[in-house]
C-alpha cells in the first residue's frame, strides 16, 4: 500500500513538473526574443543563438532541480491526506523556484540592455 501510494505520487508529480517547465520556458523565450533582438541590435543570428542557449540552460537547470527533489520517503507518506500535502508542497516549491528563475532571466535581459546602451553612448562620444 505504501509503495503504491509513492508511485502514484511520482506519476502525478512528474507530468506536472514537465508540463510546468515546458510552459514557463516556452513563454519566457518566446517573449524574450524581442529583448534579445534589441540587445544585439537586430543581428538576427546572434540573437536567436543566444536565445536558444539560454533556453537549453533553463531547461537543464529546471529539470535537474525538479528531478533532484523527486524523492519521497515512505515515512512521510502513509495516507491520502499525506499524498495531497506532500504533492502540493513539492509542486509549490518547484513553482516558486521556476518563478525565481524567470525573474532572474528578466533581470539578466535588463542588464544586457543597459550594458548595450552604455557601450553605444561610449562609441558615440568617441
Amino acid at each position, binding site marked *: 500500500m505504501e509503495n*503504491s*501510494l509513492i508511485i*502514484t505520487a511520482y*506519476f*502525478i508529480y512528474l507530468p506536472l513538473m514537465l508540463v510546468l517547465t515546458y510552459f*514557463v520556458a516556452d*513563454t*519566457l523565450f518566446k*517573449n*524574450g526574443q*524581442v*529583448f534579445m533582438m*534589441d540587445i544585439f541590435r537586430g543581428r538576427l543570428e546572434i540573437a536567436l543563438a543566444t536565445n536558444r542557449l539560454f533556453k537549453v540552460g533553463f531547461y537543464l537547470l529546471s529539470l535537474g532541480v525538479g528531478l533532484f527533489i523527486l524523492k519521497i520517503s515512505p515515512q512521510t507518506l502513509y*495516507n*491520502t*491526506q499525506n*499524498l*495531497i*500535502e506532500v504533492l*502540493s*508542497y513539492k*509542486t*509549490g*516549491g*518547484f*513553482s*516558486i*523556484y*521556476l*518563478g*525565481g528563475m*524567470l*525573474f532572474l532571466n*528578466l533581470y539578466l535581459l535588463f542588464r544586457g*540592455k*543597459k550594458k548595450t*546602451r552604455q557601450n553605444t553612448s561610449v562609441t558615440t562620444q568617441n
Partner: protein
Amino acid sequence: MYLQIILILFSINTENSKTKQTPIPLSLQMQNLNIIAYIIYLLVSFYVTIKVGWMCYQNGRVYLEDIFGHHPSWVTPINKLLLTGYYLINLGYIAFNLNDWENITTPLMMTDVLILKLGFLLVVLGALHYFNIWVLAQLAKHSMFSNK
C-alpha cells in the same frame, strides 16, 4: 493508471475502519475534513489570485507603456512575463503552504483554520502587491530605460 489515482484520492482511510469492530457508515468515512478544507482553500485562493493577477495584467499596461515609452515593442512581452512570474510565485506559495496543517476534527474547527489561513494569505498577497507598485514607481523615477 489515472483512474486508479482518482480512486485512491477519493477513498479515504480504509485502514481506520478495518481496525474497529463496527463498520463506520460511508457518509462518515467520506468526511476526512482535512481534505475538504484543502479543496475549499485551494479553490478560494486560486480564484482570488487569478482574478487579481488578471486585473493587474490589464491595468498595469498603462504604467509599463509610461516606463518603456521608448521601447513600445517591449511592453507586451514584459507584461506577459510579469503575469507568468506572478502566477508561478503566488500559486506556488499557496500550494507550498498546504504542508503542515493541524488535524481537523470538527466542522467548526475547519472554518476556524480555513479563515485563519485564507486571511494570512490575503495579507501576504496585499503586501506583495504594494511591493510591486513600489518597484514600478522606482523604475518610473529612475527611468533607466529612457533614451537620452
